[in-house]
């Protein structure tokens, strides 16, 4: 059956799930000015160059730039969660949930190294019942 789900769908277009290999985030880089974007654009939004955007596999490691601990959200959404902005090593900035941390500002230092991990999208399914693969951030394990 062509429309039968064989694996989870990507939560956003810039999350790539190769048939063979690990999932990753994809950006686009302008070969003219070096700007990096998530998703595609008609032209480079920094310099306006056309046909200069090349797909770029983004790093699975980065540093926590800033965050907010969200205690009030829309009905049905479990709180608290940490909304985090992460600068990936080698370029690209992504927003997502920071997991495996205490939701306490004292315990979440800005600038800390994080990994990008890929997991099921908190059990959320679309109307057709498809499940999704999402990305999350978590603190990097301290190397001994």
């Amino acid at each position, binding site marked *: 059956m062509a429309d039968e789900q064989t694996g989870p769908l990507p939560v956003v277009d810039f999350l790539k799930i190769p048939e063979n290999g690990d999932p990753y985030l994809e950006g686009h880089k302008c070969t003219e000015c070096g700007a990096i*974007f998530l998703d595609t654009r008609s032209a480079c939004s920094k310099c306006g160059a056309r046909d200069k955007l090349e797909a770029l596999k983004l790093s699975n490691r980065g540093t926590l730039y*800033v965050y907010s601990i969200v205690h009030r959200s829309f009905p049905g959404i479990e709180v608290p969660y940490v909304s985090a*902005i992460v600068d990936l090593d080698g370029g690209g900035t992504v927003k997502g949930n920071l997991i495996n941390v205490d939701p306490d500002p004292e315990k979440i230092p800005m600038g800390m190294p994080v990994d990008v991990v890929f997991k099921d999208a908190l059990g*959320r399914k*679309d109307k057709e019942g498809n499940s999704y693969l*999402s990305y999350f951030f978590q603190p990097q394990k301290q190397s001994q």
Partner: protein
Amino acid sequence: MSDVYILGTDMIKFGRFPDRTVPQLGAEAAQLALDDAGLTIQDMEALCCGNLYQASAMVGQRILQEIGQTGVPVVNCSNACATGATAFREAWMSIKAGIYDLVLAVGVEQMGRGLLGGGGGGKGIPKEGLLGSATMPAVFAEAGMEHSRKYGTTFEQFAKVSEKNHHHSTMNPKARYQIETPLEEVMNSEMIAYPNTKLMCSVNVDGSAAAVLASEKKAAELGMDRAVRVRASVLTSDPWQERDLVMPDVNTCTRAAAKAAYEMAGVGPEDIDLVELHDCFATAEILHYENLGLCGDGEAGKMIDEGATALGGKIPVNASGGLLSKGHPLGATGIANIYEVTTHLRGEAGKRQVEGAKLGLTHVIGLGSACAIHVLEKVN
């Protein structure tokens, strides 16, 4: 090129008016502003109307249906939280261009309840709480945390903004709330998105505000006793930034607008007597002290600690109570803060009057982003 003047301006007391329509609310502010100018709708040569939630529903024309369908050109504009200021600026530009002598600008909004932003949409599954948060309190919390990261700004310093603006609003009968709100109460209210508590979020209200703008020739003819001169009108959008779209940038477009506005007015931030700026969240006000050049980079925390931006301080900010306590009806906000500054320049602000105010600045940010700044000057 000759200047543009405000001859009349007013706003309704912000509140909740579920039994009234958007055009009715807009009509009330329009008539108040016309009365303030001593003019009638028949004197107006055009109407610029700002409204967000009914952007496709010809609100300006429907206001004229309420107060007089004179057949003049009407422009309806929508520019997020810069909507009202954009409508005002459209009026300003049409006079500056020499096309009209008298134009009415109206901003009006009827708000829903609850959180703004992050409401879902798009394909697949809802992303809120999965890919971080797109709610406004969280977005502006993250913008505030960037300031904390750079300069060590504390939760308490952000909270002091709200304490100050709530205090100011106790002297503004047109504010939604007139309630003293001590610092502990601000800090201990429900945490929405750290570091923004509930009392550090702007108030969802309905409201409207309006202004009558005139050419120099017309203002001279009608009398300038209470007129206020528009010294600068600037609108910017956000230039490309490294963290673009992941982290909306309210700083760069504000800095660009401030620089252009000071240049256009031929003044510096040290010449400004009062500021109404876009305190949609307490965190935002701190950022804009620096963005508008009211202090140096990294000095905003000290500025709030020292009370420099409170009434009686060096440069009072949001004497009206700001969006945090006066309220934030999106499309009306940009004209309501022009009303506030004009009222001070006229010496008519009562208990909250900034004594001897000659020059004032208004600032709004529409996320996405649009920044509008106006510099206004007392004439007589």
